[in-house]
């Protein structure tokens, strides 16, 4: 809003309006203040009314307030936990933390899988192959027009109709699929593996440095030095050599089929699998649409220019089109990621112990609904905020720099 006093048209002639607020209803500034006071007052009164009702109700029902319950022993059995958890010893606070970690696990794994699957389907739906692009379109339509909750219930039901442990299917040697989930062999972790991982990380860093140097040399001389020999030595040869020097231990702990359960090995529960399958299939359809429209937003002249340079289709896609499409893709993709984080809360419907499900049990046991829901909201708000901050930073980084 331009301030009226600096308007050159009224510099001469008429007198400029007074700067202060006049006590007249025709002064828009006075009206603005009055309206705001009225609205804020009404909303404040409404909140005060609800709060006083709540206080009375809480007192009448003798429900405790405050977050003290987080310090008491929970007694909620939780099937899946990333940190050690024992219901007879650990507190509600610990249980909530287990829930937060499970939610984060679902979100992170989900976002990664959705990005990959969505990008593949989005690019494939623009393929010149009619059958492939049609199939991708059908996938997108079918998946996104069915509620996510129905997806979850459906996949959970399908997983539960798998054969019982006794007749578990062996997908590949050592990996078993049954109605109690997926059993996978685990590597018996030894010190050599830790050194191997350290060497791998160092190698990745070295490769990144080499790639940066290569780009600098390319900018200076036009010739890009080869990076892959460095990568091969730093990321494969050296780590493997370290691992071999330390004795090359490699023992797999293969799950052994018992009568009712498997012994040993790692396991993925049917709840987690159903949640993952449902979330990924559903959101990948949206991600695919975002990727597709992002690529289509790149002018066809870019493809043609790439073709005129004699680039292959794959090279054009990677080097020319996708970097430009990313700018269109990032903002809507951010809201898809936020949606994944929020929709992971549907886990409560199939009994995966995520944050909402654990807090729901907690508030049923303690009756402290307000604190529980405030906790859920606070955690999700922080997750959402972190995702948007990160994506905004990334968006700013890849934004077109106009000179």
């Amino acid at each position, binding site marked *: 809003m331009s301030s009226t006093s600096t308007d050159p048209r009224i510099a001469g002639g008429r007198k400029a309006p007074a700067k202060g607020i006049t006590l007249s209803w025709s002064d828009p500034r006075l009206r603005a203040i009055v309206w705001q006071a009225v609205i804020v007052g009404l909303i404040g009164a409404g909140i005060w009314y609800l709060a006083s009702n709540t206080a009375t109700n809480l007192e009448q029902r003798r429900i405790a307030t405050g977050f003290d319950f987080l310090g008491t022993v929970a007694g909620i059995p939780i099937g899946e936990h990333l940190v050690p958890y024992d219901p007879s010893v650990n507190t509600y606070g610990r249980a909530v933390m287990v829930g937060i970690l499970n939610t984060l696990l679902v979100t992170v794994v989900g976002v990664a899988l959705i990005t990959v699957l969505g990008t593949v389907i989005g690019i494939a739906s623009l393929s010149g192959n009619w059958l*492939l692009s049609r199939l991708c379109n059908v996938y997108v339509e079918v998946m996104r027009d069915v509620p996510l909750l129905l997806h979850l219930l459906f996949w959970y039901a399908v997983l539960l109709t798998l054969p019982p442990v006794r007749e578990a299917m062996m997908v590949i040697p050592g990996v078993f699929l049954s109605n109690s989930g997926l059993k996978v062999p685990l590597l018996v972790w030894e010190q050599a593996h830790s050194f191997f991982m350290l060497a791998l990380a160092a190698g990745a860093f070295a490769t990144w440095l080499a790639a940066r140097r290569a780009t600098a040399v390319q900018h200076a001389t036009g010739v890009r030095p080869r990076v892959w020999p460095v990568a091969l030595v730093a990321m494969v040869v050296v780590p493997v050599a370290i691992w071999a020097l330390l004795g090359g231990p490699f023992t797999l702990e293969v799950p052994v089929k018992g009568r009712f359960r498997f012994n040993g090995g790692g396991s993925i529960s049917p709840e987690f699998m159903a949640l993952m399958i449902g979330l990924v299939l559903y959101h990948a359809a949206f991600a695919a649409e975002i990727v597709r429209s992002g690529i289509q937003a790149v002018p066809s002249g870019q493809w043609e220019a790439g073709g005129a340079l004699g680039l292959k289709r794959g090279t054009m896609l990677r080097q020319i089109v996708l970097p430009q499409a990313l700018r269109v893709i990032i903002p809507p993709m951010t809201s898809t990621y936020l949606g994944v984080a929020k929709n992971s809360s549907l886990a409560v419907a199939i009994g995966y112990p995520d944050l909402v499900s654990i807090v729901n049990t907690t508030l049923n046991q303690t009756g402290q609904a307000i604190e529980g829901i405030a906790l859920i909201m606070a955690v999700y708000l922080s997750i959402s905020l972190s995702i948007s901050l990160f994506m905004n930073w990334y968006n700013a980084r890849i934004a077109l720099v106009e000179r």
Partner: protein
Amino acid sequence: MSTATTTHTSVPGREQPPLLVAGPIAWARANLFSSFWSSLVTLALAYFIIKYTISFVDWAFLKSVWTVPADPVTGRLNPDACRQAKGEGACWAVIWDKYRFILFGRYPYEEQWRPAIVLVLFIGLFVVSAMRRFWRKELALIWVATLTAIFMLMWGGVFGLAYVPQDVWGGLPITLILSTFGLACAFPIAVLVALGRRSTNLPAVKLLCVIYIEVIRGVPLISLLFMASVMFPLFMPEGLNPDKLLRAQVAIILFAAVYLAEVIRGGLQALPKGQYEAADALGLSYWKKMGLIILPQALRLVIPPLVNTFIGFFKDTSLVLIIGIFDLLTSGKVAVADPIWQAFSTEVYIMLGLIYFCFCFSMARYSRGLEREFSKSVRR
């Protein structure tokens, strides 16, 4: 283009016309077999599509069980035929047995013609609202009249209809009530919130709107529904206890309003500044400016994304399952909790998926058609 392998030597120097430029074979060569990899993909996909289509048809139609006999003594259905076909054929008998329960929930059996009419009214309302011929002020009257009729039919108690309490309503009518009523109420709130967020000379109102929008957008719908089911009773004064459906409806309205507001804000921002200035130049008051000049144009701009938001909400109403409200998904889930049908939930979920798909897909097609039509008029 392959090099000519022709044996014609009579017309030297002249290229042979391409063999095929039109027709199905040329089309297939261009779109299915244009290169080695494309051909490979086509063949692999065709193999899998044919294989899975055959096994699906086999499962769904050829080896499926459509009805099961009732036990002559107890009168209960005997699902042995389904159990035998398990794994090879679908058991559609569960749908045949339960379809009225899935569609109408626990609504009294003899009165179920009433929710059936409600469904027809709802679909009629959607179709009428979708036709641009009816986009005028009278449409609001049609909505009010239809929604009144719907609630009269559902509740009864007038015109000799038996009274049916709200807690036995269920199935598809609940889903449609929650989504339609929710959107109808959320829309005016959304417009106000969007205007509030855009307002320049009411900073306090703007701040309130921003807080409202960002908080609700940052939390999952489930947390709001939990709030509706366990916290609203605490908010209310002694003795006043709105029923569960109404509480869930309020939560959905609060949630939907935010997402609609953000879409509408997009429309407000997309409108050229000249429109605002022209309205100011005419000396219109704020509400006249918005109601007569800005909103009609801004809303028109965002109809396609609005319809997409509607689709999202239609699907999201299924979340009320978690707080135990009897919508379509819940009644399907309860139907397969029946001990004799417990093993056949897949069939029921497929049917539920089809119902949701029909609604969402038609809305999506409609939105895409509108988008095309609008972009045409802009181009002209």
